[in-house]
């Protein structure tokens, strides 16, 4: 491994060839990827406003209760869907397409189709969100958009899949890096999940408890087989790139991917523990949830050991700070999820705020933080313009990190206590509701912190697009180059 440990010295001409190749790839991805990011940032702000509204209504029910479209029953699903499909999915799509082109070392294909898909996706978002707020929600969690909205996403995704797979087909790099496995998985899994669930729940609905099992098979897999592969794929690329250090164990990373592919799909029905479903089905999903410990531990070991020795880099790199936070949250949320699927634990946590804390640990502390980090890395390479303010990025990090930590702690403890009390028949239900109020207020405070961070992020993104401030010499691709000796990176893989 010795040839890998020292920074290799290459001829300037060699370097130029690869620098130009990267610049050409980034140029090809510029419009569609920035389009998805712009859509994502817009829906992040809309989703945040809806989240704050829903959160405040839980402890102040009379807050803005005069208009039907602002009632909790509409605002809450509108928040979930704008965040899941408007923010998370679009940010994920931008990252997926850019990574696919970078890893294939080939320009992004069919970019005009992608620009059309950005427009179609966002028209679907707008129609669906207005539909929910107008009272047309389907009441199926994670699929609340009225039946006229899903075809927009299906069409947009078909175009995206064509572009991603043709880019992969045109690859110049013969090795399929672990990130690409995750991305290809996501490109195949999501349309399958989405069309199957919509077909069986909205267009030709199955009857009875089958609806619930399909509902939770889908909802759980959106996180596990759509957002998780993109998030982990981004970490497997960005962590080594930012640190200039290969991943600790490549074998483990592949084991992590294939075990995720094998086990995750079984886990969703654990959402229905205690429900009127066949016991074997629920037991099977609990076993699947337990087996998830394998990919989680492989990923946790790999990420931790790759960063070991370089933790001080967290002081400097916005990307690293966000993705390390996200990667650590992935370990916590996954182990918590496996434990939560046990019947004895679930008896307490089911139907409480504890589950809400768990969901936000997954989609926010894990996935969203990784997307923030990825966007901080990708956007300057697309716009050729650096971020306007390191301090504002720092503000974004601390408000969101402290916000989601407060959110998680308040609802986890409040929810656990709530579950214990609800299992006690001697405690009146209203007493429990009243005692949850401090935790719900803490949630709103946490939400305000995160909202402040999102505003800072939106300002930074807009300023970058507008090329605000002083121009630095040369493209970002070339400017961002540390002096090797000053950085004194630990480059030797910890396992060698």
């Amino acid at each position: 491994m010795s040839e890998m440990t020292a920074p290799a010295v290459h001829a300037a001409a060699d370097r130029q060839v690869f620098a130009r190749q990267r610049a050409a790839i980034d140029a090809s991805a510029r419009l569609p990827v920035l389009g998805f990011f712009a859509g994502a940032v817009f829906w992040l702000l809309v989703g945040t406003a809806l989240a704050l509204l829903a959160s405040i209504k839980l402890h102040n029910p009379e807050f803005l209760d005069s208009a039907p479209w602002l009632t909790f029953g509409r605002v809450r699903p509108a928040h979930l869907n704008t965040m899941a499909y408007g923010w998370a999915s679009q940010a994920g799509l931008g990252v997926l397409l850019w990574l696919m082109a970078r890893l294939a070392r080939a320009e992004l294909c069919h970019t005009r189709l992608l620009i059309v898909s950005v427009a179609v996706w966002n028209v679907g978002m707008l129609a669906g969100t207005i539909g929910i707020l107008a009272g047309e929600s389907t009441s199926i969690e994670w699929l609340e958009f009225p039946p006229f909205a899903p075809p927009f996403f299906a069409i947009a995704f078909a175009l995206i899949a064509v572009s991603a797979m043709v880019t992969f087909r045109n690859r110049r790099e013969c090795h399929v890096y672990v990130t690409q496995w995750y991305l290809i998985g996501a490109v195949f899994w999501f349309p399958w999940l989405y069309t199957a669930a919509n077909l069986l729940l909205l267009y030709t609905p199955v009857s009875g408890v089958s609806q619930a099992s399909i509902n939770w098979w889908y909802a759980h897999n959106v996180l596990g087989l759509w957002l998780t592969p993109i998030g982990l794929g981004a970490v497997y690329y960005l962590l080594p790139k930012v640190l200039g250090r290969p991943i600790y164990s490549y074998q483990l990373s592949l084991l992590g991917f294939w075990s995720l592919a094998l086990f995750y799909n079984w886990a969703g029905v654990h959402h229905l523990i205690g429900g009127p479903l066949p016991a074997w089905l629920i037991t099977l999903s609990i076993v699947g949830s337990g087996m998830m410990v394998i990919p989680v531990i492989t990923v946790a070991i790999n990420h931790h050991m790759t960063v070991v020795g370089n933790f001080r880099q967290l002081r400097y790199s916005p990307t690293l700070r966000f993705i390390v936070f996200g990667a650590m949250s992935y370990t916590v949320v996954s182990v918590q999820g496996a434990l939560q699927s046990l019947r004895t634990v679930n008896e307490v946590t089911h139907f409480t705020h504890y589950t809400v804390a768990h969901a936000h640990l997954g989609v926010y502390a894990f996935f969203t933080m990784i997307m923030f980090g990825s966007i901080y890395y990708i956007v300057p390479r697309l716009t050729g313009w650096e971020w306007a303010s390191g301090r504002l990025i720092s503000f974004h990090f601390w408000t969101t990190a402290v916000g989601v930590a407060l959110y998680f702690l308040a609802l986890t403890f409040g929810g656990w206590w709530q579950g214990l009390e609800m299992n006690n028949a001697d405690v009146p239900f209203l007493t429990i509701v009243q005692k949850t109020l401090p935790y719900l207020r803490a949630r709103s405070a946490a939400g305000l912190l995160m909202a402040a961070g999102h505003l800072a992020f939106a300002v930074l993104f807009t300023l970058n697009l507008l090329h605000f401030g002083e121009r630095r010499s040369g493209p970002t691709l070339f400017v961002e180059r540390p002096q090797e000796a000053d950085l004194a990176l630990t480059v030797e893989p910890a396992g060698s």
Partner: protein
Amino acid sequence: MTLAYLVIFASFLLFGLSVVLALAWALSNGQMKNFERGATAIFDPDEPIGIATDSFPSTRWHAERFEGPLNE
């Protein structure tokens, strides 16, 4: 309804088959060999191992330590 079940069943089969084919292709194509080369596939002469490619902009540390554009 029958059509929906057919579509789902066919997609299950296709999905399973595609995973098996992907794994078979990866094995026959040598993707599971030479892991060391695989782990370093994302680096190149311009962004080699040992070089960090990101840093907080606008900090004194950044200003002091970052060199100019490559092509100057």
